[in-house]
Each structure stands twice: as C-alpha cells, then as structure tokens.
C-alpha cells in the first residue's frame, strides 16, 4: 500500500483592531444596530473615495515583523471584482500584486503522540500578508427568498496571512493558527477571537504519493473554531484518500465544513471558475513605508510609518515569553505552553509565586493540575475563578510550613472552591486538618495503635 502525503496550506483573515475602518472613518464594533456603522463610502455611493487608516498600516507592519517577513517599502492596492450582495462596490480593495509583507515564517509546537512532555517545534512559511477590506454580512431568508444585508462590517480592515502548504494534518493546522492567534493578541494588531469572526481560516488541502507532484487541492471554508479546523482538515484528507483509492478524482473546488455532520460539503456553483479581473486601484497611490535610513527630513511625522520604530516597540512574542518563564521559574517548556494558552493564567501563577515561599516548580503543579482542572470542569475562565491567587498562595504557605499535609491541602482547595469566603486557615481549623507536630503526642498515638486501641485514636479521645 503506497502511503499518502497530505498537504495543508491556510489563508487566515484577521480583523485589524482599530477604532475606524480601513478606508473610511466609520466605527469598528461588533454587534451594533444594522447599518449604523456605515459611511457613504462603505455603502459605495458615487463620489466617495478611499482614505487609508494609518493604524491599519502599522498593525500590518507589526504583524509582518513579528512573523519574520520582509516588509515591502512600496506596496500597491488592487481591485478584486465579483458580485455579491454584501459587497456594495462590486469589488474589494486588496493587495494582489505587491502586498505589504512577504516571505516570513511562523514557529509552533505540536505534541508527539498526544504527550505534552514531548513537544516538537515546526515551522510554516508565511507567503505574504496583505491589507484588504472586509465585506458586509448577508443573512439568508430562505422562506421569503431574499437576502438581508448589514454593511457594518463592510470596509473593516483585514490582514490576510497566507501560509504555505507546509502542514500535514489537522493538529498542525490548529497549532499554527493558535500560535498566530497568540502573536496577534500579544501585538494587539488583532483581538483574533474566532467566535466573533475576528479570525477566519480557510484551509487548502490535497494529497499525493511521495515523490509525485502535488495533487489537486480543495478549499475548505466555514470553519469557526480551532477544534473544527483540525476536524475539517482531517476529514478532507481522509475523504480525498478514499476517493482516490476508489479510482475517483478530486475536483478543484470550494467545500464548506458542516460542524454538525463533521464533514465537508461541495459548494460548487454552476457558474464555473471565478475571474476576479484584478486591476490597480486607481484612487490610491503606492503605499510607501520608511526606515531610519530612508526617512525624509521634512515630512509631517503623522504621514510617516517608520518600520524601525515599529520594530523597536514590538512586545515580547509568546515564544520569548515562554522561554523567559522557563528560565525564571525553572518550569518545564510544556508548562509554559499551558500558561500562555489560558488567558490570565500566567499572571495568576506569577501572583501566587510572589505571595508564597513555595518554589515555583512546586507551585506550577497546583496551578496546572488542581486549579486548571477545576476551572475546565466548571467551564470557568481564570478571571472567574472563585479561588484567588491570594487564597491559593495562603493555602500553599500552610503546606510549605508543614502545618497541613498535601492531602489535606487538596481537601481545603475543594472547600475553597465553593467560594464561601472562608480562609484556608478557617477550613483547616473547622475540619481539624492540622498536622500534628508534637513529638510526644505522635508517640502516644503510635503506641495506642500498637496496643490495639486504634478505635480510640480515630474517635479522638486520646488526642
């Protein structure tokens, strides 16, 4: 049986975190009254012109630098034409010929055989990052055979990040997107919340035999979460393998992922291949970016985007943050991944460490095993935790001072979880969980057990 090599590439659209849109001054906001955040330009009324938002340019440059791209000092805007109800102009302004950043890379980690202790670093090449407009939203009303259109989202700035087909399965695709999400959130260039449509992923999937040319690829859309991304990619790989092994062929088509059925469905429309008739955007001159060397002397600084100063202001990326946590606290690399993966967990961990004498290497166990599992069981975020870092530190101090055993500590934590406002010490006293330190007292108990009077020990009459 000849093996199959799956090939996965991704196109990720990230909504830029900005106050106003890419080419107009209307507000960017999720869930506002329909068509309330729409300017004349967004509605494509005649006589309106695009005016580029500097913040969007800076967000794209930041992202390009964080992904090791070459930032193009001159990039161009183009029109991509197609007809759809939520695209009032009949074209989208994008960057097809010369985008703002090219040739980068993204490193991410995957677990070998599902064991977090064996993590492997992989890299995916970033083909390019381009600035483009988002479209409006269509609501399909099938009963009345009409489409309702809300243009609030039309014109919001997007960064399209194109990842080369260097991935091989759903797990790698999800891990790469997760890392990109963390990077975008760290930079602040996008809040990248998939559930609010701020991060959308389309997957390009194909399979081939080793040594042979790449197979025909399909594009999978309508993926709303990282979990579904992995499922959709893996399903599509399997579907293609089965189709080919049964003597069938793969069509170069777009497929939608159905999360309920867990499969991909053909979206093939009867109109054949799309021709976007790309043309240069005639209303926008080239976008010129500067660095320290090329900076013109007399230019208004508000009109200048300086790549070097943006580079200097870049925050620590997730990979750097993880390395620092491992170095500073002596925790394992896989621990640092979990800390960064859960919103607010790193801060919680550091707060506990700062308030307790217990070594960070021991604290991390309590954070990742006890605290995190409680939170996950009850579907709570770190911010919603009924046990604060202060309370946990308090508890760990009792343990560290050997005033209670670790079994007792777990019991106290379970009590603290109820959020009744008691302190760890209160709970210890209520339940008589204190460790007996008195040598003589311990001898009395041991002697009683040896003498066969253990019942009296248990009822406490001897203590």
């Amino acid at each position, binding site marked *: 049986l000849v093996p199959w090599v799956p090939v996965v590439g991704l196109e990720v659209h990230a909504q830029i975190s900005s106050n106003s849109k890419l080419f107009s001054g209307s507000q960017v906001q999720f869930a506002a009254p329909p*068509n309330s955040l729409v300017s004349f330009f967004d509605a494509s009324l005649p006589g309106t012109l695009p005016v580029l938002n500097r913040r969007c340019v800076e967000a794209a440059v930041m992202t390009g630098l964080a992904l090791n791209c070459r930032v193009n000092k001159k990039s161009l805007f183009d029109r991509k034409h197609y007809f759809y109800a939520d695209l009032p102009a009949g074209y989208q302004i994008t960057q097809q010929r010369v985008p703002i950043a090219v040739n980068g890379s993204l490193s991410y980690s995957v677990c070998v055989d599902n064991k977090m202790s064996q993590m492997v670093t992989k890299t995916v090449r970033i083909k390019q990052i381009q600035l483009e407009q988002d479209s409006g939203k269509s609501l399909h009303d099938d009963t009345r055979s009409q489409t309702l259109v809300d243009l609030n989202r039309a014109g919001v700035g997007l960064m399209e990040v194109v990842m080369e087909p260097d991935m091989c399965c759903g797990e790698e695709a999800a891990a790469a997107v997760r890392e990109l999400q963390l990077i975008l959130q760290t930079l602040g260039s996008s809040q990248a919340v998939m559930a609010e449509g701020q991060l959308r992923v389309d997957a390009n999937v194909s399979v081939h035999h080793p040594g042979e040319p790449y197979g025909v690829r399909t594009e999978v859309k309508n993926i709303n979460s990282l979990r579904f991304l992995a499922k959709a990619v893996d399903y599509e790989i399997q579907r293609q393998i089965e189709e080919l092994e049964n003597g069938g062929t793969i069509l170069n088509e777009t497929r939608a992922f159905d999360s309920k059925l867990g499969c991909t469905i053909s979206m093939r429309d009867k109109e054949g291949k799309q021709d976007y008739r790309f043309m240069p955007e005639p209303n926008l001159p080239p976008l010129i970016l500067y660095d320290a060397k090329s900076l013109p002397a007399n230019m208004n600084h508000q009109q200048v985007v300086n790549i070097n100063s943006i580079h200097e202001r870049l925050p620590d990326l997730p990979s750097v943050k993880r390395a620092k946590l491992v170095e500073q606290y002596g925790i394992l690399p896989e621990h640092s991944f979990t800390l960064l993966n859960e919103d607010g967990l790193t801060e919680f961990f550091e707060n506990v460490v700062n308030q307790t004498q217990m070594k960070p290497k021991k604290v991390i166990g309590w954070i990742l095993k006890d605290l995190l599992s409680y939170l996950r069981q009850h579907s709570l975020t770190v911010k919603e935790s009924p046990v604060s870092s202060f309370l946990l530190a308090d508890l760990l101090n009792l343990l560290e001072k050997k005033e209670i055993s670790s079994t007792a500590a777990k019991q106290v934590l379970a009590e603290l979880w109820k959020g009744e406002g008691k302190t760890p010490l209160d709970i210890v006293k209520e339940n008589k969980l204190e460790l007996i330190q008195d040598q003589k007292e311990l001898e009395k108990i041991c002697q009683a057990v040896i003498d066969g009077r253990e019942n009296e020990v248990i009822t406490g009459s001897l203590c």
Partner: protein
Amino acid sequence: QTVTVEVLAHLEHLALVDFRDSEGVERLQKAIQFADQLHEVNTDGIEPMDSVLEDRCLYLRDDDVTEGNCMKELMKNAREKVEEYFVAPPGIVLLIKI
C-alpha cells in the same frame, strides 16, 4: 482577431452586461480594434504605469471615528428594506437573458 461566442458569453457573465445583438458585438469588436492601436507603441524596457498618482503621497488618516451613524439617510436609497437591513435577491446575482 475576432471576438468569439465563448469570450462574449464569459464577458457578459462577468460584467453582467448584455451585448444583446450583432450590432452590440460589432461595436465591441470596433472598440477592441481601436484600443489595439496601443500595441504600436514600443514599450520595451519601460516600467508600466498604473496611475498618474504614482508619485503622489498616499495620505494616511488618523484612526478616529468621524463617520457613520446615518442609517436613515442610507436607507433612502433602498428600494426595499426589512427593519434596518437592505434587501437583496437570494444567492449569486445572475445575468437573466430576455
């Protein structure tokens, strides 16, 4: 070079324009021939220009909210509306041949 039926159908579909009759096709043919005269210019070694604005400065706007909030005005243009939504036909717009 003539404009074939296939090319014509493709153009009509993409641009939602109906060339309708042979007179329309003839006019299209003549327009293409007129534009083809550009090929007589020698452009060897010359960088294409896509806009007369190419050496202008691209103005960058501050990220402030200065527009929007004019739903009622925009809706005046809508032939049909449902609550505050524009109404459009379902699915992809197709060219309907009469």
